[in-house]
């Protein structure tokens, strides 16, 4: 029974991330089209049914699965095959410790709505995100192609410069909420930001307590997804990048890993800065509005509201990520490095110092 519950939690997260990741190919096409006054891919049909091009991801998958799976003669057979799996695996695993709801009380059991409950969950996500770069580096190295190697190297350089900024910007959040457990951080974001004034209060979401960290994390997070404006490892216009020798579904897995990483970054941003599953003024017993209204709700409905709030916030975040991807031109390699090391990194260190000072003053 416990095993079943654990399996169910993992399955929920897996299916959520995989499906959203698959759907993102459609979202990317359609959103970019609508932003650019176009219609977007809408021709794939089943018996004349088009459904706004929703069958295109399906058609893509069929195409990629039936394509020739080519491997260069001088490529390292083992690493070449392993690389896309590593990429996808760590992208999928990273979402596991992001909480998608509060504890669910069902039939006398307490079910934490999180695939795995870790008290260092934030470090886990961070670790999985950085391990993802191994897939890219393996792909670049094992392809026996100079452009692929260059792409792999760039990916490693970009990852290091982005992840230092991610880690340092998260530090401020950890200091404010005093925990490495993502569930505790999300719970902390349900508390009032400032002392209540006549009962009025605003929840202490991370974007309000750590606005600079939010900007830095978002920028570094986009860099970690390796998508435009930080597509140096891929560099469509100069080197084709680490997956130049890949074809068929192996290439598809790299493309999917990018989308999955977008979902993970959106999930992390939601959990750390947008209040996670918190609905403003929704407590365990129902709504308690600051102007005095109360609305009692059954426990299941509260949990359902929280999970939908999480999904909604992640979707909104994905929209923003896509908007950025289709608005900004790409950085040159040296510009991205300069931004990472001379922009994001010092700023996030400064953020830690300022946050520490404010916390110190506030406590004394």
């Amino acid at each position: 029974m416990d095993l079943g519950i654990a399996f169910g939690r993992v399955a929920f997260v897996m299916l959520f991330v995989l499906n959203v990741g698959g759907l993102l190919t459609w979202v990317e096409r359609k959103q970019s089209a609508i932003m650019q006054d176009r219609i977007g891919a809408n021709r794939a049909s089943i018996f004349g049914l088009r459904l706004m091009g929703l069958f295109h991801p399906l058609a893509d998958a069929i195409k990629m699965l039936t394509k020739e799976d080519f491997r260069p003669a001088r490529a390292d057979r083992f690493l070449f095959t392993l690389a896309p799996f590593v990429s996808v695996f760590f992208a999928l695993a990273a979402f596991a410790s992001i909480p998608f709801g509060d504890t669910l009380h069902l039939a006398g059991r307490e079910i934490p709505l999180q695939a795995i409950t870790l008290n260092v969950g934030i470090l886990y996500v961070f670790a999985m995100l950085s391990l993802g770069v191994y897939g890219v580096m393996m792909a670049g190295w094992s392809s026996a192609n100079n452009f692929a190697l260059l792409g792999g190297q760039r990916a490693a350089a970009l990852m290091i410069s982005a992840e230092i900024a991610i880690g340092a910007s998260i530090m401020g959040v950890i200091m404010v909420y005093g925990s490495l457990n993502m569930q505790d951080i999300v719970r902390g974001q349900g508390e009032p930001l400032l002392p209540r004034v006549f009962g009025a209060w605003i929840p202490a979401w991370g974007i309000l307590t750590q606005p600079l960290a939010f900007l830095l994390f978002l920028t570094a997070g986009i860099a970690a997804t390796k998508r435009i404006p930080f597509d140096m490892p891929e560099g469509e216009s100069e080197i084709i990048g680490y997956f130049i020798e890949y074809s068929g579904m192996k290439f598809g897995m790299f493309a999917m890993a990018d989308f999955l990483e977008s979902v993970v970054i959106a999930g992390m941003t939601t959990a750390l800065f947008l209040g996670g599953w918190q609905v403003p003024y929704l407590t365990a017993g129902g709504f308690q509005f600051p102007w005095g209204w109360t609305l009692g709700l059954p426990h299941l409905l509260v949990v359902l509201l929280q999970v939908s709030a999480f999904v909604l916030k992640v979707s909104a975040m994905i929209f923003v990520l896509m908007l950025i991807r289709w608005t900004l031109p790409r950085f040159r390699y040296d510009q991205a490095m300069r931004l990472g090391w001379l922009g994001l990194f010092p700023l996030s260190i400064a953020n830690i110092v300022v946050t520490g000072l404010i916390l110190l003053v506030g406590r004394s």
Partner: protein
Amino acid sequence: MRLGQRFYVVEVVAGLALTAHHFFRNMGRHIAHALGRTDVKGAVTVQYPEEHRPYSPRLRSLHRLVRREDGSPRCVACMMCETVCPARCIYIVADEHPNPEIEKVPARFDIDLGKCVFCGYCVEACPEDAIRMDTGILEFSSYSRTGMIYTKEMLLSLEPASPDGRPTSPVPIPAGRRP
């Protein structure tokens, strides 16, 4: 460079505001279109096989041979078009015409559209106004080279395009069009 540009954030937000404005405006128009306001369009693109942009009246499209009142070709097989053709895609075999007032008549008049460059010199060179390029037909691709060769009968069967540039006669199908 202004300070705001150096720190990216202001300019990035301005850019995002522009693209987001386009997104939400077009999304609203798409929804209005789906709800029955068919005059509102969310995109500026033309859905090509179903919709066509209007063609210019000067458009040079598939050739046609102009007919006399009795239905025979107006062409007198003078070979002017065959001579002027830079792509050498016209092939004419002349024949006697039963009417002694008319000099000749083409027994064969083939145009290989796989070679044709649509320069319109044949139309300009023709002394009898017997060949024109005003059918409005542009979609005559083929799986084979023989499928691009249009014979006299096919060219004679064509009508000029309607004033909006749309073809009025069906596209003739040469033998060998299908794979």
